């Protein structure tokens, strides 16, 4: 795990959504469909984490959680900007004007924040998943996807560290924190499986998309190691069916989008 200087990321060299919009990169439609999944996961989780601002257990956590949200929002903007090039749409067209069934987020990012332990359990899964995903995407034949992944993977590495450090503290802290952490893992684990499902779209993008099933073993090993160090176990729970990649979402997404989109939709055609 990387815990060295926070200045490793040099914003001046990093790819910005504006750069993608200004470039002549144009995503083939299948790649755009794939980019929507990545962007939607990041956007919805950023939206969820945004709720914690001014509500975290400690000021340092207000900063950490909003920073993670900000990173995710940056990834979402890049993926959505790139996806939009296929249909002549902007990141905001895609974020604010798609309906629930047009979103491609996985159920795990839609889940409610719950208590701090539940938010951390969700962060543990998503950050370790995204780290393996973006690492594999570095060698994607699609240059834009590889470039977005190159920036994202460095940031997600910190998200991994943040969640793992908290799992250790909550798992081995007090009786209460341990009970809450165990419960949080149980509530989160039904939604893990969906992240690692391959489908026709991913199979059609050989060498471009990352087949999520190929990431599962490494994910299990690394997350398993964190849980073992915290003296916690991978919960044995029934998997939820998922379906987010096909537009079949949890009951929560409609509320999330209602809030995210309300102002933009009150002013069609306006710029901000």
């Amino acid at each position, binding site marked *: 795990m990387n815990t060295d200087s926070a200045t490793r990321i040099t914003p001046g060299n990093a790819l910005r959504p504006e750069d993608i919009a200004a470039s002549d990169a144009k995503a083939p439609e299948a790649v755009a469909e794939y980019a929507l999944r990545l962007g939607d996961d990041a956007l919805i989780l950023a939206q969820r984490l945004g709720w914690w601002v*001014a509500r975290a257990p400690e*000021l340092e956590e207000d900063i950490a959680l909003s920073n993670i949200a900000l990173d995710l929002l940056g990834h979402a903007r890049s993926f959505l900007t790139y996806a939009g090039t296929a249909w002549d749409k902007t990141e905001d067209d895609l974020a604010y004007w798609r309906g629930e069934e047009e979103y491609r987020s996985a159920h795990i990012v839609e889940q409610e924040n719950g208590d701090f332990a539940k938010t951390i359990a969700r962060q543990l899964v998503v950050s370790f998943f995204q780290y393996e995903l973006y690492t594999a995407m570095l060698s994607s034949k699609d240059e834009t996807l590889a470039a977005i992944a190159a920036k994202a993977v460095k940031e997600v590495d910190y998200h991994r560290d943040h969640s793992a450090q908290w799992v250790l503290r909550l798992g081995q802290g007090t009786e209460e924190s341990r009970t809450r952490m165990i419960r949080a893992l149980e509530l989160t684990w039904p939604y893990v499986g969906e992240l690692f499902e391959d489908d026709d779209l991913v199979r059609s993008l050989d060498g471009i998309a990352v087949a999520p099933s190929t990431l599962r073993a490494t994910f299990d090993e690394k997350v398993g190691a964190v849980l073992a160090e915290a003296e916690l176990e991978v919960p044995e729970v029934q998997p939820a069916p998922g379906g987010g990649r096909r537009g079949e979402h949890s009951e929560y997404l409609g509320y999330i989008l209602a809030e995210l989109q309300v*102002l933009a939709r009150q*002013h069609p055609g*306006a710029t901000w």
Partner: protein
Amino acid sequence: MATQTELYAVPAQQDDDAAGQAAFDAVIADDSRIEPRDWMPEGYRKTLVRQVSQHAHSEIIGMQPEANWITRAPSLKRKAILLAKVQDEAGHGLYLYSAAETLGTPREKMTEDLIAGKARYSSIFNYPTRSWADMGAIGWLVDGAAICNQVPLCRASYGPYGRAMVRICKEESFHQRQGFEILLELANGTEAQKQMAQDAINRWYAPALMMFGPPDDDSPNSRQSMAWNIKRFSNDELRQRFVGMIYEQVKVLGLTLPDDQIRFNEETGKWEHGPLDWNEFKEVLAGRGPCNSQRLARRREAHENGAWVREAAAAYAAKQARKTEVA
């Protein structure tokens, strides 16, 4: 009598230390800086703890009215900017609590005082953010007023406070510019957007002017603070300077300030503005503003809901320390 501070890093001192007082007076006369381990009069320490902690509380409570729009920001770019801005404010709060700790008061104590309703914070944050344009008006007017207040504080005689303000002012000036830019975009947008911007300016103008504090003839603590080189300009001086700035800037927006009495007085060389409702100011200060209860309740709730997390972190740290001892 010896005064024991609550943090061991800060030295206890004798209040009647003639040599200490002489050294302190010399530093102030020289317009130089007092540092944490220097002798200082108890009144100076108390004044600073009050001012710096109030300032920290203002940053922390001030996160709430803006956090109100993070999930509803109308574009992803604006959402990112707003998130970053609110995050800056949490950082300012941390920085200022640390500066206050160098005076011997722990952060836990300041937090307890805040959620118990014993500490003050800037009244401006007890007003609601009803529209997106409020994000613009807060940046332009509220952060703008804060900068006018805070730039002179970079030269405050207490070293850690002055240095904290240098960094905070840099970020605040970004905040002000992004607020102005939000309003500029709205002012050049649809009729509804323009109206939203004007409405926000109308609501935030007077509360922003009152951020400088009561008029000079009704500001009991100002004189001593100025003598100690903590405060450099009076409330009214700063307010007048601010009015002059925004009077020019609002023209760029093509909008108006809700005050037809603003003028530059050639004789005094000062800007003048219409009367402010100081009764309203006192009401909000006394806890009867539109959002006082809500703001404190949310801070208290966050603190109480987070107790088990902080306890877990402390218990974990203690266990690790014991392991290290054994090893």
